[in-house]
């Protein structure tokens, strides 16, 4: 997936001279995960810039660049280091269009690694997408395959508004897939149905699609048809696809790595309760990270929801 991300950067920089890549170690080093590998050699030091080690600088500078004709694609090295940038994202980037009544806008993409599972040090493994989803005026996207990373990143860069692009670290090198470097963007604001089934709907995103698809396969062996939906764009949510699936299956299990409390799963559950309650044949189940600090890596796999937890939750919806 990490090569697909670098490839999408390359395509868009080649075809749009206003695209500029900024961040810590994105230049000569090509990014600590190699997501910007080769870009500085190809496009030069003006268009691929190593910034000072300062996240508020990266986000604030992006606001200035974006309001004045550039399209910054900024990397925050890890999601746990995004917090100094939040002031700029919440107070400026997200509301620039609204508060100037459309006079100025912020076509910015902020990319950042998301989630755990790779034995990384402290503050390198959190999933705090909910904080971003709560901010009006920005989109939050989380791809779950190389092809979707390529297509969604292109869409994010082409979008006229700010997009937070969360890259699940467990997927960076987890799967190999041929991706056509054809500049084709995928739609933002749309779910992807990865697996069809008639008995239960599993909604998930990011790295948890791996456990969810495994659970789907395991359930299949027991004659239970699980439909697995990749949410992909976490804000705004494409609720229509989910409602249509729930209308078919009557059961909903939401799976995410982030803590349960006020997670994106809660919003999905609320929307389905509001618009699809009479389609439900069983209470909605959430399988999520615990409401604890993401533990250091000795316990991270006890924190990240397992296939068994998903299977058990599905069986609970069927036991009624």
């Amino acid at each position, binding site marked *: 997936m990490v090569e697909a991300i670098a490839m999408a950067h390359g395509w868009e920089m080649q075809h749009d001279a206003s695209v500029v890549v900024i961040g*810590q*170690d994105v*230049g*000569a*080093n*090509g990014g*600590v995960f190699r997501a910007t590998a080769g870009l500085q050699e190809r496009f030069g030091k003006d268009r691929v810039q*190593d910034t*000072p*080690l*300062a*996240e*508020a*600088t990266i986000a604030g500078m992006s606001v200035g660049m974006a309001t004045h004709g550039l399209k910054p694609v900024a990397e925050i090295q890890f999601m*746990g*280091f995004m*917090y*100094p940038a939040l002031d700029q994202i919440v107070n400026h980037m997200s509301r620039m269009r609204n508060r100037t009544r459309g006079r100025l806008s912020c076509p910015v993409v902020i990319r950042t690694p998301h989630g755990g599972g790779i*034995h*990384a*040090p*402290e*503050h*390198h493994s959190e999933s705090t997408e909910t904080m971003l989803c709560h901010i009006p005026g920005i989109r939050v996207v989380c791809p779950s395959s190389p092809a979707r990373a390529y297509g969604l990143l292109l869409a994010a860069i082409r979008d006229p508004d700010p997009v937070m692009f969360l890259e699940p670290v467990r997927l960076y090198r987890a799967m190999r897939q041929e991706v056509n470097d054809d500049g084709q963007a995928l739609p933002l604001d749309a779910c992807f149905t990865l697996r069809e089934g008639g008995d239960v709907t599993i909604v998930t995103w990011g790295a948890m699609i791996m456990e969810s698809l495994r659970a789907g396969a395991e359930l299949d062996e027991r004659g239970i048809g699980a439909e697995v939906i990749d949410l992909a764009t976490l804000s705004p949510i494409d609720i229509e696809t989910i409602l249509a699936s729930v209308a078919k299956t009557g059961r909903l299990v939401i799976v995410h790595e982030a803590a*349960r409390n006020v997670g994106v799963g809660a919003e999905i559950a609320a929307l389905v309760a509001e618009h699809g309650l009479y389609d439900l044949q069983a209470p909605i189940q959430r399988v999520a990270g*615990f*409401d*604890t*600090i993401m*533990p*250091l*890596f*000795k*316990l*991270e*796999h*006890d*924190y990240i929801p*397992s296939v*068994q*937890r998903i299977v058990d939750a599905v069986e609970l919806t069927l036991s009624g």
Partner: protein
Amino acid sequence: MKTVAEFKIHYRQILGGNGAVLAPLPQFAKDSAEVLRMYRAMTLVRVFDAKAVNLQRTGQLGTYPSSLGHEAAHVGVGAAMRPEDVLAPVYREFGTQLWRGVTMTEILTYWGGDERGNDFAVPRQDFAWCVPIATQTLHAAGAAMAFKLRKEPRCALAYIGDGGTSEGAFYEALNLAGSRALPVVFVIVNNGWAISVPTKAQTAAKTLAQKAVAAGIPGVQVDGNDVFAVREVVGEALESARRGAGPSVIEALTYRLSDHTTADDASRYRSGEEVKDAWALEPLLRIRRFLVDTGLWHAAKERALLEECTLKVDAAVTEYLGKVKPATDAMFDHLFATLPAHLSEQRLIARHYSSKPGVSKPGGH
């Protein structure tokens, strides 16, 4: 036009790169037992560091930030501090921490992915490692505020790297400390590289010590590979802060001889020539030369010291590898003073799905 402010930054050095004494020796450097103690500490952390990198390479430790080349800066700071002072480290200053009583087992435990490594038996009041860049500088200022309000003759000392000086929090800490004359010392370890970004790409300032100027506090530069100079300069800054004269900034110039961490490959962005040149100025070389020149050291003692250090490191590694993996309860037990009810339920779920508790899995699964 009149000049309303101007500044100078002084550079301090006692031991030259070849071990020659370039300035009057401070009192501690005339005490052979004390000099040997510092040399032993520098050697121990060097041996420990090589072992830790090796543990990571063999899958028995997580990502690890080597301190190779920083031994003089780290041990010099440790030796200058008093036990009752408080350290706010970044994540690489093992030489200071070992001097202050943190154990090698604790260091390995934390970098092995286990929070128990942060529960130092000694020193209880020091801060734990701080990965979010520059945030620790404000914690040190806050601790110093507590000492000042209680009129305790104690100081806080915060480390920060060259890259960290680009963060807003660093300037905020200096500004606060200066405005309240807090008993805090900020030690910038300028090792030339913030992962792949060289110091000259962080700032147009000629020195990082001069970052103190805008906060109205003293800043000084020191040869960070010279343990005598570091200890002397930091000692002066701490005593000045202790007697109420306020904070200061010290920039220790050194070189990161290793990759940023074991997850990094510095050959992608810096030349082998540069690293080779830096090795000629590395900190152990010159103090060893000083010890030999003053008749305190010879080859047999060096061999014995290396053996002794290896035994200590091996004992710590054995203790670390023998640690039983924490139970899933550990995620919950320290979250609040009293665990809320819904978390007690989640604790049961975690136990139910736990992967084989009780089996030690150093380095992960």
